[in-house]
């Protein structure tokens, strides 16, 4: 296989002949003009369609058109899809993108099913699902031809319409009736990849046929605006709830693009064992009602007898190819490159992106966090920030003085103040005392925690103090090492997370409800499981959301997670996708062990300290992109940490008992 990348053997008759012996690749067989007339010895083109296009992203400009062919070679039927090169309208589309999606040849021996989709408006498209459970991105037939394609396939291999769904065509029909039924049910298991195991990725080498295919470009360019128009209409007319699994398959092409840098590496390294294992499982488990291809990285094996509904977005090891790999934290040198001569951050989006993927070196956090939290405007100058810090310092002192000036005589007659102060006093000595920064008696940092929280309860008299706030303040003080600056960073954070602490818990409830909707969207079997087991209040995620996973990770990891969340780079609500990602990691255990609410709560509590942050962040990113607009629609406007949509009363509190 490697050799084909190094030497162009396309015109070598011996090479072509050698490929006929059960080989899966024909990567160079159609590399010359004559290929459209006659393929290398024994190969015959039985179907050819131009302007078959994939939509790797939502942008019309990033679509990739190509030519789809069916090639009969000996007893095998192969499919190829070669994108046209040189689509000049398309600067964002790199050569490697095209190479990534290229299907040099996939044998129908490896295809499980073809899913035809006929929207009311717009183009017909198909999704080809491999027997490994992987799927190619949807192919849109701009010039029609789906019916003809299916008819052609049927002439050469067994093609059966699924009894369950008239738009699903089973290619490798199974002897076993049960298997046959399953194969049509297994659609949701499919995971799209740019190139399946049988069509290896070229190392970015330009394919040799590009000159010949370039003639098609004009057609594509000419229809670009029309394409965009039709597409938006199509989306408008499609019922979003109609077939979520089909929609998700479409989304996968988006994820695929996101993961393109990692895909080639990881698939090269791991596909043989991951997919090999999956296939074995499928064959071994003929009596199993739900053969699952979960590659087990769960804590422990699950008893076999309990059927577990498979994950619509098959996860576990496969996840590795989704989100982007984490980067090293932003360091000092690189940080400086973001500033102009007066200290303005020139490209805040690039900065946020950088931090999203790598976090910040700890020594830099003191400088970076005030930007992320919104204390400093990105376009402020150094001088402006210095001035602001000094103004804010005196403002802080003024508020602090309000409670400091309450004399013991006053306090004696001021029960609510005493109670509030007593509560804070009790809680700060129960906050991160295992850290040396806060340990031992009479630690001045613990006193700072208390002063800041008490001052905050005067700054925000309506919200006051509530347990959990000290957990949010502690890392901020640890990073900022300055009372006033910590206070204002905390104020900025509470602008977003304040509703978590509302007396009526409405901020928490709205987030937990959005989480419910996200799980319903992204993992309906898990949702149904929670529903059946009376777990839909999602209280088992309460601590995660209330204090932003502060108790789930060690201190340094928490700080990393927070700065990633604070970038609000792909979503303001990434934390909810983090919840979904963790639940999906353990879905098999949760359902396999038939956890009830109590057991689940205990299990989730005990995950603390055992969650791999980097893996979860990648999963969360992939899920967020995968869910797209449907995901965003699960989260109503104003759901924390979005800024409140209401003006005026931010914190409607009932009559307080503790001031």
């Amino acid at each position: 296989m490697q050799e084909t990348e190094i030497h162009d053997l396309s015109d070598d008759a011996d090479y072509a002949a050698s490929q006929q012996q059960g080989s899966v690749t024909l990567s160079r067989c159609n590399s010359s003009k004559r290929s459209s007339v006659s393929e290398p010895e024994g190969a015959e083109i039985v179907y050819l369609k131009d302007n078959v296009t994939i939509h790797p992203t939502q942008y019309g400009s990033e679509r990739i058109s190509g030519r789809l062919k069916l090639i009969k070679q000996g007893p095998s039927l192969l499919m190829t899809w070669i994108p046209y090169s040189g689509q000049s309208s398309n600067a964002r589309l790199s050569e490697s993108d095209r190479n990534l999606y290229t299907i040099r040849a996939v044998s129908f021996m490896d295809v499980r099913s073809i899913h035809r989709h006929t929207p009311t408006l717009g183009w017909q498209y198909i999704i080809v699902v491999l027997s490994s459970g992987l799927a190619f991105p949807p192919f849109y037939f701009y010039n029609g031809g789906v019916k003809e394609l299916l008819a052609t396939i049927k002439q050469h291999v067994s093609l059966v319409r699924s009894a369950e769904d008239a738009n699903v065509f089973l290619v490798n029909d199974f002897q076993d009736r049960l298997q046959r039924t399953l194969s049509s049910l297994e659609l949701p298991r499919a995971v799209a990849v740019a190139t399946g195991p049988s069509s290896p990725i070229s190392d970015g080498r330009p394919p040799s046929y590009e000159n010949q295919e370039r003639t098609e470009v004009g057609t594509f360019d000419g229809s670009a605006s029309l394409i965009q128009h039709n597409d938006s209409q199509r989306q408008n007319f499609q019922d979003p709830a109609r077939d979520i699994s089909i929609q998700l398959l479409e989304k996968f092409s988006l994820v695929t693009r996101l993961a393109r840098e990692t895909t080639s590496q990881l698939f090269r390294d791991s596909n043989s064992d991951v997919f090999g294992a999956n296939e074995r499982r499928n064959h071994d488990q003929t009596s199993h009602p739900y053969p699952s291809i979960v590659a087990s990285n769960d804590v422990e094996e699950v008893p076999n007898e309990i059927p577990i509904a498979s994950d619509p977005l098959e996860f576990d090891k496969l996840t590795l190819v989704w989100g982007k790999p984490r980067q090293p934290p932003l360091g000092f040198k690189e940080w400086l490159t973001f500033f102009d001569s007066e200290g303005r951050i020139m490209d805040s989006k690039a900065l946020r992106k950088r931090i999203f993927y790598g976090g910040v070196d700890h020594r830099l956090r003191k400088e970076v966090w005030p930007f992320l939290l919104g204390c400093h405007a990105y376009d402020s100058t150094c001088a402006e920030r210095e001035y602001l810090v000094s103004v804010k310092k005196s403002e802080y002192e003024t508020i602090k003085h309000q409670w400091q000036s309450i004399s013991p005589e006053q306090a004696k007659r001021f029960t609510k103040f005493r109670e509030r102060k007593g509560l804070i006093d009790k809680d700060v000595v129960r906050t991160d005392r295992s850290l040396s920064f806060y340990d031992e008696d009479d630690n001045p940092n613990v006193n700072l925690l208390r002063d800041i929280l008490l001052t905050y309860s005067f700054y925000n008299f309506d919200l006051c103090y509530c347990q959990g706030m000290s957990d949010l303040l502690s890392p901020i003080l640890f990073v900022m090492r300055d009372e006033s600056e910590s206070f204002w960073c905390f104020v900025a954070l509470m602008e977003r997370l304040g509703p978590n602490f509302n007396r009526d818990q409405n901020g928490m409830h709205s987030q937990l409800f959005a989480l419910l909707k996200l799980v319903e969207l992204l993992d309906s079997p898990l949702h149904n499981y929670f529903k059946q087991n009376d777990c839909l209040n999602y209280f088992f995620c309460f601590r995660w959301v209330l204090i932003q996973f502060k108790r789930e990770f060690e201190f340094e990891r928490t700080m990393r997670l927070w700065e990633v969340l604070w970038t609000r780079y792909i979503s303001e609500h990434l934390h909810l996708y983090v919840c979904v990602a963790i639940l999906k990691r353990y879905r098999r255990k949760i359902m396999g062990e038939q956890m009830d609410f109590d057991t689940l709560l205990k299990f989730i509590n005990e995950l603390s300290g055992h969650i791999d942050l980097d893996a979860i962040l990648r999963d969360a990113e992939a899920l967020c992109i995968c869910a797209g607009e449907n995901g965003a629609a699960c989260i109503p406007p104003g759901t924390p940490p979005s800024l409140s949509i209401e003006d005026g009363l931010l914190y409607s509190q009932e009559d307080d008992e503790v001031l």
Partner: protein
Amino acid sequence: MSYAYLFKYIIIGDTGVGKSCLLLQFTDKRFQPVHDLTIGVEFGARMVTIDNKPIKLQIWDTAGQESFRSITRSYYRGAAGALLVYDITRRETFNHLASWLEDARQHANANMTIMLIGNKCDLAHRRAVSTEEGEQFAKEHGLIFMEASAKTAQNVEEAFISTAATIYKKIQDGVFDVSNESYGIKVGYGGIPGPSGGRDVNASQGGGCCS
């Protein structure tokens, strides 16, 4: 470790009355004043022996702050026993008992055994609630009562175990249908012969052992 029964307990009461410290003293036999404040709920477990039968206590230690009440209420479901705790040095924690009790009555099963604990009895010099008041409240509401100290361990063992003994007696008297888990009781392998096996056979957490 196998057990005859598993009882679910819940510890409730105002913030700072020493709920987590009582739990730690019972499961680990140590007093740790500097632990993180409880957000949501924490869990502990220990085996005890009642009537020569090994019984596992699975204990839910809840957050005390008023704001979290709506969450705490969901934890009552299926509890066989509750420890309702106040701090004898802080009057207001005693004054709030009625509202805790109301929550428990409303959200827990009616046969739940409730033990009232006046904690921090080592701090007698700062006492703000007399023993008699505690006794009186318990009597009025049909609770078992003890003063205890998580710091000195006084009565901690007794509080948990006498609650378990009361629940056990209720089982013997046929008050509970033990096959119905909503009573907060699970039958384990070490107990009554029958088809219902104990699913939760993990060793007790935090180093506790049979006493």
